[in-house]
């Protein structure tokens, strides 16, 4: 609570930090979708109600997904440190943090994907089966196609969760707004920086939610006709 950093300097500090956070979150979200979508599809397909029920495979996938998901992110960060170092050459900094962020987010997004696909009415799948469509076409057109709004929503939820994780990683040198908040704000006894970073994190999460909600609405061709 001593002398306050002047606003221009605060802004100078927060600008790159925000960029780093956005970079980490967007990259990790993208990688989580790339990895989590197929995993979620497999999770659904192998389930008893899926196109290709396979109880052993389903159980193994489920356990892997849920175990990783239940590991607290901080623990993941530490446990994955050497793997991260092997992959990107360092365990600190925003690029390094993308590794544990992605590892944590893949099963998260996979589970959301499987849940979204489960909501697709089996009648639609069966109707497609009777047309002689291949499994791949059914997955693409019926499952992913019909669940598209829920999937975009899942991307949003994942991204927002990752904003929190990225901030947490910032606390142990991950870079971005989290690091600024802790190092310059909290440890530097500067409320202005601390609260500005926190507000920016919140704004990012809110903006992300807004954007993905809007995107979900755009891709959703269902128009619920409400009668008065």
């Amino acid at each position, binding site marked *: 609570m001593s002398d306050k950093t002047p606003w221009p300097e605060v802004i100078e500090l927060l600008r790159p930090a925000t960029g780093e956070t956005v970079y980490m979150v967007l990259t990790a979200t993208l990688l989580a979708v790339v990895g989590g979508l197929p995993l979620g599809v497999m999770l659904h397909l192998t389930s008893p109600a899926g196109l290709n029920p396979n109880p052993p495979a389903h159980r193994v996938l489920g356990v892997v997904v849920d175990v990783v998901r239940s590991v607290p992110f901080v623990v993941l960060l530490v446990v994955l440190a050497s793997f991260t170092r092997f992959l990107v050459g360092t365990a600190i900094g925003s690029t390094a943090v993308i590794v544990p962020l992605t590892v944590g987010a893949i099963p998260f997004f996979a589970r959301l994907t499987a849940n979204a696909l489960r909501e697709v009415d089996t009648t*639609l799948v069966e109707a497609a089966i009777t*047309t002689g469509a291949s499994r791949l076409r059914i997955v693409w057109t019926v499952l992913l196609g019909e669940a598209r709004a829920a999937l975009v929503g899942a991307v949003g939820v994942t991204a927002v969760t990752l904003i929190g994780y990225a901030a947490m990683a910032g606390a142990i040198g991950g870079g971005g707004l989290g690091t600024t908040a802790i190092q310059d704000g909290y440890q530097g006894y500067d409320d202005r920086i601390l609260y500005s970073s926190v507000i920016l994190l919140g704004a990012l999460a809110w903006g992300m939610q807004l954007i993905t909600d809007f995107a979900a609405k755009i891709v959703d*061709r*269902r128009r619920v006709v409400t009668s008065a």
Partner: protein
Amino acid sequence: MITVENLTKSFPHDNGAVVALDNVSMQVPDGAVCGVVGSSGAGKSTLARCIALLDKPDSGAIRVDGTDLVALDGKSLRAARRRIGVVPQGDSLLRQRTAAGNVALPLEAANMSAPQRRSRVAELLDLVGLSDKAPVYPDQLSGGQRQRVAVARALAAQPSVLLADEPTSALDPSTTDSVLTVLDRARSELGVTVLVVTHDMAVVRRIADDVAVLEQGSVVEHGKVLDLVSEPGSRIGSTLLPETDQGSAVPAAGIGHDVVAEVVLVGFAAVGALLPEASNRFDVELSILGGGLTRLGDTPVAKFRIGLSGELSESALKWMIEHDAHVRRAPVSVDGVAA
């Protein structure tokens, strides 16, 4: 032509099994519309799902144009599926695709080129009377329109067989009519063989040539509707034809008549002329004690309880039988009221 031979299907249930289909055999001739009726749980949907190749029967054969489809898998199964158009029970349209997009699905599955697909989709939407709804999403269509799109989709890949499970169960009578008209057109314009599962006898009355009655997994009645209605004791007959006992309207049935009988008359000629002609020819007095006229598809069918008085009553009745009236003598009970 659909042939079902000794089809058996059971589902595990508690510690035992529910036999949903018990040695079912039936066939639908080329270009015919066959209704499958029966009470809830009789096995209608199971039969439809087996023929749609969605459920595998425990035993038996399902032939479409001769080939047994039960044993197929992989590519040959997918190819066989294209020969069977299916309108599943309930809402089955993709809500994220337009009417046209839904109809295109089987064509995409068959790898048809986009321009060909477009013209075929237009043809089909025209067939079901929904050309103007091509760019509309299912949520903005009425229930009847959605079912017609589902029929168009089922017909897209030019199947030889069309299978519809309760296509009208969620619809009101006038909407039902529009869907039935479309099924009827599929048969008359495309020559498709149609099997329609329904609990609604109005569907049978309106479009079925043939009918199969399922009860607890077994076929208890099967044949041409017009043949069955004239068979004594037929359930189809008793449901589709008018009642002949109209309570107090026929108090004197059997009294004052030499012969009381039930007659079923099928077709314009019989319905229009047979009774008066018999009456004239044999100089018997003929009175109608009950019953009435109905229509099965395009065919007028009448069921009357008649009373004949006159010396030649028996001969008149015999003459009617010779002229294709289906006659059942009403047993006359002691108190003079025909039972």
